[in-house]
């Protein structure tokens, strides 16, 4: 068949010529044909020009170093840490930021001046958790679906719906007491929302949902208006603790929750 007439040139040939995707024999044939078809030749030249200009205008972005907030280490659990230094590095850094910023709310003000921090941790679990916090902590009559006086039933129900044993952490050391919990939709999976309050009536939520990567991550901080959140991943679940309290207290609470989760995980291999 080598002596046969090549198939006629069509639209796909002209597209593939511009993209450099013709084999050498076909390319030579098409280019020769263009020599006697100035209208199509001008069109190919214009298409090549658009392609070149697009690539030029967009090249600089891909040449930039990857911004810190897009480093994969933000998303991937760190290497397993020795038990002695189990508190995540980011947590320690966040504490020193708060303490270093003249302590307490002065430190909080310093953090507020850095909006990039607010964005940097705001993953989809965090956004959903903050939305759930705003929705249900504002409830006077029905903040939770199952109340704390039915805690065994609550644990059983949430565990069954999420298909994972759900732990209800004891946050008494941080001054928070369980109010109860509920199940929430979360994309094509489900989330559990536990709500706590302290003696002043300050409410805090712990949001957890399945579908995260295995292993564990560091704590990530996010703030949306007056609401602060720390999120992390542990054993295939995403956790987000959310409240209108200062970062230091919220981070301590996150640490307490994380410690109880890991104690449970270690106890039941």
């Amino acid at each position, binding site marked *: 068949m080598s002596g046969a007439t090549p198939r006629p040139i069509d*639209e*796909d040939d002209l*597209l*593939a010529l*511009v*993209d450099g*995707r013709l084999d050498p024999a076909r390319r030579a044939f098409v280019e020769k044909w263009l020599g006697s078809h100035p*209208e199509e030749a*001008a*069109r190919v030249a*214009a*298409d090549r*020009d*658009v*392609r070149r*200009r*697009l*690539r030029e*205008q*967009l090249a600089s*972005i*891909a*040449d*930039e170093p*990857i*911004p810190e*907030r*897009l480093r*994969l*280490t933000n*998303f*991937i*659990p760190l*290497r397993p840490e020795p038990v002695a230094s189990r508190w995540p590095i980011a947590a320690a850094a966040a504490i020193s930021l708060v303490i270093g910023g003249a302590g307490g709310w002065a430190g909080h003000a310093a953090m507020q001046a850095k909006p990039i921090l607010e*964005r940097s941790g705001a*993953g*989809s679990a965090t956004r959903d958790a903050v939305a759930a916090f705003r929705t249900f902590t504002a409830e006077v009559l029905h903040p939770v679906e199952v109340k704390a006086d039915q805690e065994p039933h609550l644990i059983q129900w949430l565990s069954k719906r999420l298909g994972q044993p759900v732990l209800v952490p004891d946050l008494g050391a941080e001054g928070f007491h369980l109010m109860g919990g509920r199940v929430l939709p979360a994309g094509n999976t489900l989330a559990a929302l536990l709500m706590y309050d302290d003696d002043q009536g300050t409410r805090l939520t712990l949001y957890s949902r399945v*579908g*995260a*990567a*295995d*292993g564990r991550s560091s704590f990530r901080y996010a703030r949306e208006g007056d609401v602060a959140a720390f999120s992390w991943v542990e054993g295939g679940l*995403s956790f987000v603790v959310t409240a209108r309290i200062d970062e230091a207290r919220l981070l301590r609470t996150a640490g307490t929750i994380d410690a109880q989760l890991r104690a449970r995980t270690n106890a039941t291999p």
Partner: protein
Amino acid sequence: MDEIARLIEPQIPALRRYAFALLRDREAADDLVQDTLERAVAAWSGRHRDGDVRAWLFKIERNLFLRMVQRRSRAGREVGSEALEQVPDPCADPEADTGVKDVLAGIAALPEEQRSVLLLIAVEDMSYAEAAEVLGIPVGTVMSRLSRARERMRGFIETGRNGFLRRVK
């Protein structure tokens, strides 16, 4: 976990470039990439082992972008899905800069399906088959969308905007 970093990290610069070309806003583009990476890491174990990681990542990013555009247009007024196809990037106003024939303004005024085809093939150097995988359409549809995208871009370069085509004679 090291495998994730080894396979995904090299794609981040290109994911940023595609996101910027779609949104033409640096901050919004990096937000989109961040969401993409989060989704990718979470879904890593469920992906096809032998699949093309680049196509998989771009597919996640584009789907997140489409969801965002859909949410935005729903927040505005009710539009059908056919109408959405014709809605150009909301930041694009080709009439505003008729003087400067900026190719980025040109692609922003394309319907998204043509814009993505052109970007994936001309800028990201994807094969037609790889672009088809990202977009979830047959290769033949990739070719016809690419053809329409190039035709409109020629019109844009010629006239300064791509709404009205003038055939080059």
